[in-house]
């Protein structure tokens, strides 16, 4: 039985998902995700070429409201839960990998 997901794959998806995993976690997650994907083989093996995909229980349509101003959260309320805010904006550390 070939491995369904390699240790390198797990390290890659962790990076994509902005998660840091140590060596022991990599081993654990690789085994666990492998077992789940192995179970999913029953679905992988089905011939569904002629079956359309379903992404949602019913067909979604755009829902519009009248273009009129209404009550919204104030800037202060929206920023109240932020770890850091400044001048009405969310504050973050340096971006683009520049060291401060």
């Amino acid at each position, binding site marked *: 039985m070939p491995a369904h997901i390699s240790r390198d794959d797990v390290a890659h998806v962790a990076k994509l998902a*902005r*998660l840091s995993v140590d060596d022991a976690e990599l081993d654990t997650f690789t085994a666990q995700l492998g077992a*789940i994907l192995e*179970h999913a083989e029953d*679905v*992988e093996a*089905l011939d569904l070429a002629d079956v359309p995909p*379903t992404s949602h229980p019913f067909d979604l349509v755009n829902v519009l409201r009248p273009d009129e101003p209404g009550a919204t959260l104030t800037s202060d309320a929206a920023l109240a839960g932020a*770890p850091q805010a400044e001048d009405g904006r969310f504050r973050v*550390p340096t971006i683009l990998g520049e060291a401060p």
Partner: protein
Amino acid sequence: MSASGETAVAIAAVVRSGRRSAVDVIDEHLARIEAHEGSVHAFNLVTAAEARAQAAEVDRRIAAGDDVGPLAGVPVAVKDNLCTNGVATTCSSKILEGWIPPYDATVVQRLAAAGAITVGKTNLDEFAMGSSTENSAFGPTRNPIDLSRVPGGSSGGSAAAVAADFAPISLGSDTGGSIRQPAAFCGVVGVKPTYGLVSRYGLIAFASSLDQVGPFADTVEDAALLLEVIAGHDPADATSIPQPSPSLVEHLDDGVNGLRVGLVTELIGDGIHPDVAARVREAAEALAAAGATVEEVSVPAVAYGLSAYYLIAPAEASSNLARFDGVRYGLRVDAPTTNEMMVATRTAGFGPEVKRRIMLGTYALSAGYYDAFYGQAQKVRTLIARDFAAAYDRFDVLLSPTTPTTAFGLGAIADPLTMYLNDICTIPTNLAGDCAVSVPFGTDRDDLPVGVQILAPSLGEVTMFRAARVVEAAAPARSSAATDGRFHA
């Protein structure tokens, strides 16, 4: 029943008539919470002061002659993934610990508008990912029927709150069984409404195409009343069905004469504990005795539900949980750059099951695997919807167990895939967008409650509740030894 042996319907009646004050009702329930919450841990937060103030306001309005609503003075517990204005909402995650939402979920607004009084925010598996409430960052909830066992999950706190008589009714959310499975484990009624019947505005998203808010209660009537209160169109949710809330209580006693009931072959055989299967067959006999016709029906694609679900739900979760990045709310772990800050925050803030599902979903959506996993799972979703539609051409409702087993012990299931198997009977309904209810029906050989699941097509709630009422009326009473054993496991 509530602490006083009363249902929500009975409490609202005495409070509305002025024969009993809402403050008295709330004090009685808060006293019960104080006495037993230490051993159950149903709540992340008990909002005693706010509840007393709201109860006093209800009493004041009743004295002034106002119509306070159908849930006047009724205590309700709310799952801690529903936003409550000014009251901490955590999803049982360290990444949201201490966060105070600036608005109420629509369902929370509707509870208040109906006169209900929120007594607290209930524990859950972190971000509603789990089947035991052991994945909470704030410690597990215990099953009030037997404190050595799990209450199920992810809405384990809401199920336990009703089973422990902390409140006669509560709200949960159900993405793959997270209301029905804990309802079955705790011996209460739990409803997963039709997708789009109840607003998701203010429900912190796990898998947006599957999530639905729904009621827990001790009786089918209370569950129907609570669903009437929270259902109906909400302009703030683009997936909300543009129809008013259905009349459910009015039709509860219409009976099942002539109703066609299908017993789902794939969900009654292998993998189902014989005691559970026996109770489901007895429930089928009770429906037949009440005038329904009962036949077995095959719904073949449900066999693929688990695999499809564990590709689709993690895929949606990996996208939804990208918003927890230390910028706008909740935890931030400081680091020199924004990218490092996000990695450090998410690594420290999410528990192992959430990380597992985020990675699984990221993988299922990633280049080279999308078609094999996510795309294929979406096609299976079509098959499941088709097979259900074919079954509903011949049957009004379907019948199955809610869970393969009764409540298991804390710590008994360590392997993620084994835990996922708890949801094999409940997941197909979420994938199809249909409705289903778990009704307690007798016990297994260890005196643990068994849940019978009644499934109905999209917007089939009226018929579903009629059948649920007949099953409830026929259910054998739990032995007094079992009920006396509460809190003494």
